[in-house]
């Protein structure tokens, strides 16, 4: 398996509405990172979150083991601090080895759910 991806990715359009519809956690409204590490070395990943009216927060650190994927809800990030809901945000994802990053949104603010999935912007 050859190494694929990039080491820096950008997602400018984050926003987690406050109200969910449906049983949780399956239908909790969320923004989600899907990270693929197809390489043979564990990926040390750092996420920095940007806001409109204050300094960036981070890094949020996590590991994606070699040849594995990891899905992370932004809602669940608490270290160094919980992200505010109902607030526009953006993030940069840095890794020490190439990874592939997808951004998903599950919007359950009304009973008719909406799903969005896009590949993040590969910076380098």
């Amino acid at each position, binding site marked *: 398996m050859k190494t694929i991806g990039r080491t820096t990715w950008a997602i400018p359009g984050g926003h987690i509405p*406050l109200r969910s519809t449906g049983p*949780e*956690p399956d239908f*909790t409204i969320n923004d989600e990172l899907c990270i693929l590490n197809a390489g043979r070395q564990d990926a040390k990943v750092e996420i920095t979150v940007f806001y409109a009216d204050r300094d960036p927060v981070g890094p949020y650190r996590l590991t994606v083991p070699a040849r594995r994927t990891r899905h992370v*809800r932004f*809602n*669940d*990030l*608490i*270290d*160094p*601090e*919980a*992200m*505010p*809901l*109902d*607030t526009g945000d953006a993030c940069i994802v840095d890794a020490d080895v190439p990874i592939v990053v997808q951004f998903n949104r599950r919007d359950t603010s009304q009973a008719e759910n909406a799903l969005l999935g896009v590949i993040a912007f590969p910076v380098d």
Partner: protein
Amino acid sequence: MQHEWRNWSGSFRFTPASTEAPAGEEELSKIVQRAAAEGRTVRVVGAGHSSSPLVQTEDILISMERLKGVESHDTSVREVTIKSGMMLREANRAFLDLGLALENLGDVDLQSLGGAIGTGTHGTGKRLHILSHHLIGGRLINGRGELIEFSMERDPDFVLAARVVLGTLGIFTALKLRLVPVFHLHRKEWCTHIEDCMANLDRLIEENRNFDFYWYPRSDEAKLRTLNFEEEEQRAIPYARCVKEMSGWSGEVIPRQRELRFDEIEFFFPAESAPACFREVRKRVKQRHRKNVGWRVLYRTIAADDAYLSGAHGCDSATISLHQNTMLPYEEYFKDIESIFRAYGGRPHWGKKHYLKAEDLKPLYPLWDRFLEFRQQMDPEGVFLNPYLGEILGCERAASLRA
């Protein structure tokens, strides 16, 4: 030049006029005598883990860091006397060397043992008490600088007052503890939905030596933690998946490392009313606070005791605590949920945030006035009072010291 002092979470800070680290009781006695003579005040610092400003002073701050070690022990009756400056982690190790242990521990072991005892710190377990329950005697320097020796045999009422004391009767120099034989536990952590946890709560509490759960407000999931003796059969929890397990002696497997700093508020409730209180807290957090609150809510249980100012005084209890990252605002959240805590007759953890004053607290503790009598006897001039203690105890310093 004095350095600014800050607590573990960084939520309060102050600069004392001076910091003293006496090497023994005689030196400590002289410091207190001098303070009393000069109309000054004294507070003692432990590990600084508390997030209530019990330690705060702009006057003399005492560190007991030079008073450490086991002073005496009699393992046949499981009694150990230690110097009061020992950290909880150090004390656990010393007890282990003697084949003894505290019957329970809290979620962390970062505190000083004196501080943990003085604030009524606890772990979880229906049949397990707050840490102070081990205290059966010791020595302290009172507000006149006198060395006082006390014991359960001679002064049981005084010991019950001294078990949760907030540093107001004096400065402990030695703590005599009755411990339990060293023991090993098997720890498991499980994930499930909060509704499954609550539907089985009584059974989980009853069937496990130690049980608590965290509720995660942004997913409605719960993490259950069960600890049982290694030699016992380890029960499965069919509606939860085990995500972690480990075995070891109690001092190793009960407390965990906590790198991420937080502020915390915790209240004690009669065990039978705590589930309803938790349900109301959960509803309120989801309605009003989820925008800024992503961290967990902790539910634990504690056996009844008879320490005068213990949160579990007179009734088997459960506690509910809220956590918030230190970098995020907490007051609006804590104050709003505290209104629910108070509606359920909750008593605050003395070492954590709360917004109650003496007039709110007095009705919660049947022996409140008796405690204050002991405080007045031991420290009539208020050498050990700071403004915060004055507010929560309803005490004023002697007129001669207020100028």
